[in-house]
């Protein structure tokens, strides 16, 4: 969707290195989310944000941190990447602040930790 972009689209990194994934939106929405998608697990929430500098943990937050210094950007950092963090990562925004319930998703980042 044109209103939300993720970068990079693909990344291969080594175990133990830090990695930062970026989510950028042009919709000026308050709510932003990071999910990971793994076969057999569906999508699981890592962290979310309900405004600049306001973030909270999801169900699988261990090993991840986030930052949101501007409305349009939500960064996900893997502090020391492990093979268990090999996954597809999706960012999403919610239009709830304008009465449009539900998410718009980015195209995803495929991360491989070797």
């Amino acid at each position, binding site marked *: *969707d044109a209103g939300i972009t993720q970068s990079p689209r693909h990344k291969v990194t080594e175990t133990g290195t830090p990695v930062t994934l970026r989510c950028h939106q042009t919709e000026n929405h308050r*709510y932003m*989310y990071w*999910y990971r998608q793994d076969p*057999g*697990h*569906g*999508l*699981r*929430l890592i962290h*979310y944000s*309900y405004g600049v500098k306001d973030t*909270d943990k*999801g169900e699988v937050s261990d090993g991840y941190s986030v930052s949101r210094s501007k409305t349009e950007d939500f960064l996900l950092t893997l502090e020391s990447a492990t093979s268990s963090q090999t996954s597809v990562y*999706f960012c999403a925004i*919610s239009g*709830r602040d304008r009465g449009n*319930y*539900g*998410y*718009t*998703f*980015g*195209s*995803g980042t495929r991360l491989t930790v070797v």
Partner: protein
Amino acid sequence: AQSVTQLDSQVPVFEEAPVELRCNYSSSVSVYLFWYVQYPNQGLQLLLKYLSGSTLVKGINGFEAEFNKSQTSFHLRKPSVHISDTAEYFCAVGLLDGSEKLVFGKGTKLTVNP
């Protein structure tokens, strides 16, 4: 805690046949309900949503879903499927706790065969 169960992990059907993808949820509070579709190597796209009102909801691409509060179900249906409907489908519950978080099921892979 809220949870979503998609009863079938895989559903194979023939082209032009009807299909039903089943979704049950559990929640102690009122929820919103969603169906998303994911085509290969893409992000998730909203198919339809139930917020309130009529329990029969129509979405894009000829899909519809029916909310059944007594059975806590939100099954997705299409009367005649096409090859292009081959994708993974996710049911999700939206939490009315101010966080606007969505809890996803594990997905149902629909394969439409000629």
